């Protein structure tokens, strides 16, 4: 089960940090504030779901560096970047790396709250997708190498005869292994297996 969403906020200006916390608390979010990005990175875990609101310009680790670090950790936390001075190249870079949004200070509080809500949803989805992929991967891993290779051929749409020809295995053996694979992964059709396989592949190499 996923944890409650948490809103992490990072700003080197303590007053801005306090004001943002005050705003988010009125919306009954769980808020944690950090005066620098390094402290935040020490606190977050891979299973966290929620959103990070960070200032772009900060001494030592800035918003861009924080984002890069999060991507590397494959964190599910969504990122909202806030800046006092945005230019096009920075905006493009930040969005390309998967930030949910980039807001220019001073921002409209209503819009920020909306973005936060959206970000939390995105984060939760990301977490759930990851969760499902991991489960699918677990199922797929129960298959033997022979079963997996036959199923891959089947998923790509080859008829049994062709598979038999390609892998030099008899039609009956193929049929038996197909049935075994469907049973092990608890799916009913080759179509459902294809979905399972694709989900599993998101979680890593099979």
């Amino acid at each position, binding site marked *: 089960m996923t944890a409650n969403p948490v809103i992490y906020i990072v700003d080197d*200006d303590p007053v*801005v940090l*306090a*004001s943002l916390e005050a*705003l988010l608390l009125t919306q009954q979010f769980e808020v944690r504030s950090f005066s620098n990005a390094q402290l935040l990175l020490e606190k977050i875990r891979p299973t966290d779901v929620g959103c990070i609101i960070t200032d772009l310009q900060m001494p030592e680790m*800035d918003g861009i560096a924080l984002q890069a670090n999060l991507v590397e950790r494959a964190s599910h936390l969504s990122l909202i970047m806030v800046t*006092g001075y945005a230019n096009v190249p920075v905006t493009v870079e930040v969005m390309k790396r998967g930030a949910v949004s980039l807001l220019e200070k001073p*921002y409209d*509080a*209503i819009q920020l709250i909306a973005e936060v809500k959206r970000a939390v949803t995105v984060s939760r989805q990301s977490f759930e997708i990851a969760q499902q992929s991991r489960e699918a991967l677990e199922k797929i891993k129960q298959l033997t190498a022979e079963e997996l290779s036959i199923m891959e051929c089947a998923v790509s749409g080859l008829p049994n005869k062709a598979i038999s020809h390609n892998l030099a295995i008899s039609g009956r053996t193929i049929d038996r292994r197909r049935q075994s694979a469907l049973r092990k992964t608890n799916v009913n059709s080759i179509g459902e297996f294809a979905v399972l396989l694709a989900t599993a592949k998101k979680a890593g190499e099979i």
Partner: protein
Amino acid sequence: MLVEDIKLSESLESLQRQVRRYRSLVLAIAENVWVADPDGQRTEVVHGESVTSVEPGWVAVSDRLNAMHPDDRISLERKIVKSLATFEIFRHEARILDDSHKGKQISLLAVPVRNETGEVEEWIGLTEDITLLKEQSSRIADELEWRRVSFEQSLDPIVVLESDGSVFACNASFCRVLGYSRDELKRMFAWDWDLVYDKEYLLERLAGNKAPDTKFETRHRCKNGQTIDLEVGVFPFELQGKRLIYCLHRDISQRKEHERKILRQTELQKIVAYTASHLVESGPDEQLIIKALNDFRGKFGIDGHLNYDFNESTSTLDLVSSDGFSEESLRNLAKCPITKVPEQHDLIREKMCYSVQEFGLCPAEVAIQQHVVGSCCIPLVDGGKLIGVLTLISFTQRQFDSDVLGALFTLASLLASTKQRIRSDTALRENQTKVAAAVAALRDSDERFRQLAEHIVDVFWIYDVVAQKYLYVSPAFNLLFSVSAEEFSGTTAEYLSFLHEDDRPAFLAARHRQLNGHETVEEYRILSSDGKQRWIIDRATPIMNSVGFVYRLVGVLRDVTERVAAQDKLAVQQSELLHVSRLNTLGLMSAAISHELNQPLSAIANFAKACEFSLDEATNDTRALCAEYLRQINSQSLRAGEILRRLLDFGKRSPARMAAIDINQVLQDSVALAGVDLRNRGIRVEWQLQSGLRAIEGDRIQLQQVFVNLFANAADAMDDVAQGRKLILLRSFGQPGKIVVEMEDQGCGITNELREKLFIPFNSTKQRGSGIGLSICKTIVDAHRGEITAREAQEHGTIFSVVLPAGGTQL
């Protein structure tokens, strides 16, 4: 009486008269008269000879001979023999051999006395002492010889001219200097070698019709065509009724050469300044740059081509490619066909290549088709990068002297900065024009000040302390005060009435200091009766008696109205310049500024919205929260306002306003202004500000500008330093009479060469720098009578140190 008797007695009388006459003659010289036999064997000394100490009486000739100096005996004997044989008048000089052996000289004269029949009866002789005469004549001969030698051997060329301009005499040095032989010179006239004065003028001078100028400078032409500068001293004199002119020459070619060099350098500086002003005005307009270069070349008399070439694309730098001169480029260089490239070509290529790489100078001589071409290639360097070349080609000059090369270097740096400006924005160009204008204004006021100094009439005054009156004011008093020295009563009260009201207290305070034995220099305004206001500088010195009592004051007044006006104008222009520069800085800081301002604004927005949301469900808790949020909103608005105030102050067009200020406050404001930009670039600022420092007299905004510029400079210096190690240390501390601020960065430091040029305008090593930041810092610090220096930090980085004089009050 018979007629014969009468005749007889007359002739007798005449005879007697003659006898009397001869007797008195003989008596007069009797001492040294002697008589000799016709055969000359013996002589009778009539009254004794004082010279030879011979007693009266007969003396044998042989004895007389023996009395002579042995060396003279033979010649004397010969002479006697000769005279006896021919009966000619005997005249001879000889030395006598006396006891003292002093070698007296005598002259012997003997005349034959003949009787009626014409036979020689006897000789009558005279001995004369000519020792003194001889000594004198030998002295004269020595003197003559000495003079002859000093004339002949003098290293200074001397010529003696006759009044018609021909040569009467000349010495060896004169011949040597002009290169003519003495004989050749004897046939020449003064105008044949004088290049400055013509025949007519020289003749007038020689005749003594011109002003009695005893010294003049001229130039002579030598036989080999060379010219020589000489100073001529002229002394006319007369010799045997002939008017002669003695001309002493002194070689002043070296001095003249030096003078010419200075003149040339001055001229050159003028040309460079002229070209600089052209380039500054012209900006990036290529036509105008070319025109300026042509002017430069023309004014300096360089025949050939002076070209510049910016290497925007590599193809334009064909002239000097990275591997030196190609044959093609040589052809371009000389603009004439090459049939054979001489051997030294390779050498030139090597040299040129090396020089271009080192950004140094490369003089090269290329011989192409018998045309000797001197060329010189100066790289245009901007920010340590080669951006083009300035080439000078000459068809007549093989080499260029250091003056020309120096000027070309200046030109090259000007060109490089022009090029840099092409890249820069218009604000920067405006800046540079302003700087040029300020420089021109400075030069202008300098010139005016010089003229003023030349035409100034100072007023001297003496003040009697006991009588409390001016004892004396010099006549020029009238010019300044429109009151003649006689009309001026001398009382301090009257003097005060001339002064501008506002300046009177300062004057009296200065007078008080003078009476306490201090020298003072005071500037004040006076109002002359025609209502005009003049600025006067009054330097006063107290005079003390032996017990240290000041009994008199003396001083000098000088009219400095124009200088003050020029200073005021300059101050206005300078504050203009500083303002523009600040606006430029503000422009650069705009990103940081908007961030700075957005911080409190977003805090306000957040708090306000939080309030609104909280009020929807008004409980006591939320009320308290809202009150807190509203307080925050208030303080954040004030914070935003403060930021705006600082920015407005910084960007304000304000004349320098000197006041007692706290340097630490200035530093804190500067950090606040520059701080966000520094933070964004990952730079930390650490400070150690000594508290309780004395106030300094200065302009808050201008000093902020200094430190903001220094911060920007330090930040730029650390661009290449790793994140986390970027640190600026800011210190302030007091020294006796001074307050020191030091700013240390962790950058790459500065080279000695750079340090010298650090504060010169347009000398930026940065790509985006205008090169005036540090020069503006220096201008401001100078105006505060302070000093700004840079030095290498102990480990790495640079320390900029600003030393300002401490004012009176303790803070």
